[in-house]
């Protein structure tokens, strides 16, 4: 089965990103295809490389980046939601005159159409949120 996963909340505050990660990992281990993971609302905050979680806790952002690298996952951050919350890549920094970027490896910023496309192209959409 081909899956699109939607994540609506940021790291640590809600379990949504944890649940989505464990679900995605389990689906990949079972041989399913993950078409895309789409980060919306505060979910865009999963894509900042500036976090430094405590040593004895999981690193949510790094975990997504590693999973993306291992499985060539498409981790998409919604641009409109990212602009409101301050998640920035090189292109966004230039367009909006920002003096820094914070996007984590393996994530890319794109439009809401990527979520719609996920709904069209995938067999299932699974949403994790608050």
């Amino acid at each position, binding site marked *: 089965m081909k899956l699109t996963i939607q994540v609506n909340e940021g790291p640590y505050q809600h379990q949504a990103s944890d649940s989505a990660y464990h679900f995605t990992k389990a689906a990949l281990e079972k041989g399913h295809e993950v078409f895309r993971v789409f980060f919306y*609302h505060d979910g865009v905050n999963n894509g900042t490389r500036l976090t430094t979680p405590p040593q004895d806790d999981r690193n949510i952002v790094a975990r997504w980046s590693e999973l993306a690298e291992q499985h060539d996952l498409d981790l998409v951050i919604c641009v409109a939601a990212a602009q409101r919350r301050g998640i920035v890549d090189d292109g966004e920094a230039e367009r909006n005159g920002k003096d820094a970027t914070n996007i984590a490896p393996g994530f890319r910023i794109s439009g809401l159409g990527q979520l719609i496309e996920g*709904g069209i192209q995938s067999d299932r959409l699974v949403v994790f949120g608050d």
Partner: protein
Amino acid sequence: MATKKFMYVNRRAPYGTIYAWEALEVVLIGAAFEQDVSLAFVDDGVFQLMKGQDTSGIDMKNFSPTYSALGDYEVTKIYVEKESLEERGLTLDDLQHLVWEDEDDDWAEKDSIRLVSRAELAEVFAGQDVMFNF
């Protein structure tokens, strides 16, 4: 690829959280993809359609006029759950009157809102291909 039936489920009140507004942004963008789109307003989601919203005192963008533009985006199936409305002391008169123009019927103006019971809406859900949740 065949057209899919998309259902956007709205269960949250506006302004207290951003979900209502960012969900509407998805619907507007999604309209360009020419799928078979429906919206459902359940639980506090029915509050999104309240008439007379004035956000000047909280300095937030009043996005409620956007719902009346949905008809122009060919989003014409808007389900409002009856039980949710009644529990909150509301009737359809408290909500915006949403319409669309039917080009197959000499552009006659038709109601977009369909007041349905919980059981009826469950049946509508059963007929969908993809449920969007925010």
